[in-house]
């Protein structure tokens, strides 16, 4: 079987390779003086825009009470069944509150349906994307980890009011 020859052989310049190296290095050199996009994570944190869907959190009013009335709609709509809510009675005007609110962050897929369905604007997607656990128990986020002051969530809430 005869060897198949290349249709167009390399020219002499291409064969010696050096011009190509110079071309490549000049590109590198040019980019060295352009503005940098790399972020020095984790020393430097990425702050996402309001449209970003980080981990879902519960909105805590300024008086320290959660907005959630434990209606269970987030729990019902959640496609991967990440949310568990147990309601109980309170003396407040709203009558009920979540005595237990647990999101299994191993199940959560950050789809944002919970915040979309919430009738009280009580669960919203935060900007927190730093989630790492070493065991299943740590991935269960209870009210202690979920409750977030309304001040910190204001831009997401404004975003929702504009686009929801």
């Amino acid at each position: 079987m005869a060897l198949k020859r290349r249709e167009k052989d390399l020219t002499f310049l291409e064969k010696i390779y050096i011009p190509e190296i110079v071309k490549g290095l000049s590109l590198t050199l040019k980019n060295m003086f352009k503005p940098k996009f790399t972020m020095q994570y984790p020393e430097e944190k990425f702050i996402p825009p309001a449209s970003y869907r980080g981990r879902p959190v519960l909105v805590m009013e300024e008086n320290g009470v959660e907005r959630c009335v434990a209606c269970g709609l987030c729990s019902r709509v959640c496609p991967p069944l990440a949310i568990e809510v147990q309601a109980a009675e309170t003396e407040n005007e709203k009558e009920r509150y979540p005595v237990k609110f647990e999101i299994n962050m191993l199940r959560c897929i950050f789809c944002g349906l919970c915040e979309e369905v919430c009738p009280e604007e009580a669960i919203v997607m935060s900007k927190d994307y730093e989630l790492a656990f070493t065991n299943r128990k740590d991935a269960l986020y209870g009210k202690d980890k979920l409750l977030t002051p309304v001040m910190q969530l204001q831009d997401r809430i404004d975003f929702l009011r504009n686009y929801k």
Partner: protein
Amino acid sequence: MPKFVLDGKEIEFEQGQTIIQAAKKNGITIPHFCWHESLSVSGNCRVCLVEIEKMPKLSIACATLAADGMVVYSASDKALSARNAVMEFELINHPLDCPICDEAGECKLQDYAYSHGAGESRFNEEKTHKDKRVPLGPLVMFDGDRCISCSRCIRFCDEIAKEPQLTFVKRGDRVTIVTYPGKQLDNPYSMNVTDICPVGALTSRDFRFKARVWELSKTKSVCNGCSRGCNINLEVRNNKVLRLTPRQNDEVNSFWMCDHGRVNTYKFINDENRVDGPYLRRGGTLVRSGWDEAFAAASSELKSYSKNEIAFIGSPYATCEDNYALTKFASSIIGTKHIDFMRHVDQTFGDNLLRKDDITPNSLGAEIVGVVPGKGGLNLEGIIKGIKDGNIKALYLIEDDLVEGNHELQEVFAKLDLFITHSTNFNKTTELADFVFPASTYAEKNGTIVNFEGRLQRLRPAVATFDVDRALEGMSLSRWDKFGTKFDSWAEGNKHDVRSTWRIIVGLSGAMGHKLKYGVAEEVFWDIAKNVSSFSGLDYGKVGELGAKLKLELNTKTVTA
């Protein structure tokens, strides 16, 4: 039979039936709030408006008698626009409470707001405000805002419970429901108003905020509160029974059940003091052991007594299968004739509606399947006397806390050399026992019970036990049950290591060297059907959802009804 035409379909009816009744008989439901099959017609909600040919105006289907040749349209443009308008009126003052309302998910107003509502309100003025969170009675909570004034609850108290405790006061949009001054809504059937209330104005205080209704799985079962055997749904979430609701059975309980049955007959199932795994007494205290170990120890103990020293006490709380297995064990394996059970009768409990003085679900069943002393055998009194005299040295008791009902028995049972009991919970009786086998409750097993008038009804498992998988066992599944894994705290609940009494007896008989060949509860039932004449020809399929009447030869002692 006279006929009329409803939406182009010819419908037969009986003279005197209203349009809505005839339609329902034929499987067509005309929307309604205030109308209820077993209450009088009130005709105040106006949602059932239908168009009738040759009638100048629309008529309400609940109060218009069907007539021969009538032509009715329940979904014509005219009828629909009237219904939509009525819905708009209903929703004017109704608060947007659905997120905090227990009725959400089973609310007629919610359903019709979807099908007939405009989706938005043209009412810009402020809604009326009435009292919220008013405890009308010990078990019922009232929310005035949500009430649509259909008067179902008032009519229920007047006509069914026969205790007129509720009434309307005020007029127009200020109308609200109150109890008569100085009275509470505390009749024994008060919680039925929470079922018939088409909105969330009347809700159960017992179930308040425990779960959303769509999270519950429903299992058709029978109430164990008395010998009426009201048909119920066991509603379960996370393997815990959260509430019981009545299930329609016109032969037994119609649409109703009493508050005692609804509130007091399920809590022990979820209780902390359930017997979990077999226990045997070592050095004075009950110690948890394995099943095989407990069976071996109990059988060797039983073998050390002569057959006339052993007595058996069945239970009117246990199923026919359990009691039958016990009689079989007593007669063919132990060979004793000393077998009986204790009746529990409370003369103050019964009434003319549903409640019966016999407060056990299956005393007739226990009697029919043979938990009665054999020829020359001792009855209950005889057994107790025998224990006192020292003639009976060993007692085998199933599913009945005899000591709680009769404290004198404490001293009597203390005299026993061997006391084996099956129990669902730890109680005064298990304190005295040498062996405590963990019995399934009525919510954890298949079985049948016989009510006071001889109707055989099915129990079905709603709560999974230690060695049961809900899906494989064919138990009803909620969405959570379907998709949960063992790593989810909301899926598996607290599974107890318990077995049906008949199954424990099968295990014990195996250890005694005479295996009873039952694999599932229905096999025990087939054996009953073969050997007990009243049960002949029956199987679980024939008992079905509504039960089957037994052919009773009343040679048995008349049961106190």
